[in-house]
């Protein structure tokens, strides 16, 4: 079962490995990458993380020795199917707009008694953050193929959208970059990496709708918080705090722009 998948992953990794492409033109290389992506689509390397997440969802943990099976991701306690396609959303119980990761932290705190700071403080793919990532892999698999459906009616959502849009264009730091520097025009690339134009419905649907994702080059499953964190690193910004309002605001801006697009999660990326 696993062996052929591993092989394709390896070939893709090799394809993308370095600047030492042979004489073949860059377009050919991009075609190759897209072909391998399609080949991988039937057997997603995120399955392992998703299986781990499913088990975690059902496991009693924390001071309250309870599972997450009654966690409300917006569609009612325990409903996972289609839930992440409708996130971020405004939650009345917390009075906050939350993305999948911060909502999972709320459930871990209220149902299990786990301290959210344990997630915030952990390194990527370590400790409680790795556990949240596994849960994310499980939850988003259950929205694969759904439509992105963000409820923009609550005023809190409108506010977050406005803040997210300002954040998207916010130029700062030693290189004067904003998100728009790299994602604000159609058909641009950084090196060989194609960049979606996140200002448009089509681009946002492709970019937002295919995350969280398995990153072949790193051999890791990355959540959306992880993706945004690494883009801020490339932007030469200071580091956004895990789950901080700026990350939620940007997520609302991207998801609302992508509204109506198709969810393909977990995605498979370079």
């Amino acid at each position, binding site marked *: 079962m696993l062996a052929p998948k591993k092989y394709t992953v390896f070939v893709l990794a090799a394809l993308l490995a370095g600047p030492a492409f042979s004489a073949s033109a860059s377009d050919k290389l991009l075609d190759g990458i897209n072909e391998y992506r399609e080949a991988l689509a039937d057997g997603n390397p995120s399955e392992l993380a998703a299986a781990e997440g499913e088990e975690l969802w059902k496991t009693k943990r924390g001071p309250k020795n309870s599972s997450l099976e009654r966690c409300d991701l917006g569609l009612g306690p325990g409903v996972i199917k289609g839930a992440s396609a409708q996130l971020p959303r405004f939650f009345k119980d917390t009075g906050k707009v939350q993305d999948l990761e911060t909502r999972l932290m709320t459930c871990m705190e209220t149902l299990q008694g786990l301290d959210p700071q344990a997630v915030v403080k952990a390194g990527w793919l370590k400790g409680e953050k790795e556990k949240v990532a596994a849960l994310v892999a499980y939850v988003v698999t259950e929205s694969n193929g759904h439509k992105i459906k963000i409820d923009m009616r609550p005023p809190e959502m409108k506010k977050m959208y406005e803040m997210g849009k300002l954040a998207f264009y916010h130029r700062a730091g030693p*290189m004067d970059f904003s998100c728009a520097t790299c994602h604000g025009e159609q058909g641009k690339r*950084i*090196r*060989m990496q194609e960049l979606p134009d996140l200002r448009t419905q089509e681009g946002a649907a492709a970019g937002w709708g295919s995350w969280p994702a398995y990153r072949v080059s790193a051999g890791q499953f990355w959540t959306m918080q992880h993706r945004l964190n690494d883009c801020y*690193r490339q932007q030469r910004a200071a*580091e956004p705090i895990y789950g901080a309002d700026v990350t939620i605001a940007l997520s609302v801006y991207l998801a609302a722009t992508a509204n109506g697009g198709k969810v393909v999660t977990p995605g498979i990326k370079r």
Partner: protein
Amino acid sequence: MKKITTLAALLLVLPAAWAGSEDTYAEFKAMMDRSFQTNGIAAKHRMYQLDFQKACSVEKQPSKQVMAQIEAAQLKTIRYPADGKYFGNWKEGEKIAVSGRGLTWTDQTPHNNGGGCYNCHQMSHHEVSYGTIGPSLLEYGKVRGNSDEIVKYTWGKIYNAKAFNACSNMPRNGDAEILTEQQIKHLMAFLFDPASPVNQK
């Protein structure tokens, strides 16, 4: 310091340069302030904007008047080589153009940065992995020649791209101290030297 105050004054006169209301902006600034932390060399104050960065943080470009004001101020930051020598070694320049390293929170020091030119520009005949955010610079020296005017312009563009296009996506390599004068000389050689792979197959 002076350039900042002049522009601030201009922005006050022209509130349309920034589309949102002041209340919204105050709320946004508070959100940014609580959302970021220092990590290594990437200090939290990086999120605070220079006036021109703020003026350029908009969906559509600011007015011609604001752009011209920014460009005039940025032009004054450009330091031309003190010894009058504009060209270093193209082989060193190529390495700097290829390296996209530097200034992130995973970098140890704010020095020894790459130029990251290939992230945005096609440059040489043999490197096919190039970005397209900026225009192609293939055969730059061959096409442009090496008149004093073009040499000086190119130095200035690399030193501070905002002097020629206020809201350019290109970093201010010299003014923001991303690259040293010596590194810029090497890049100049890479762009202009007839033997460089930029100009020769």
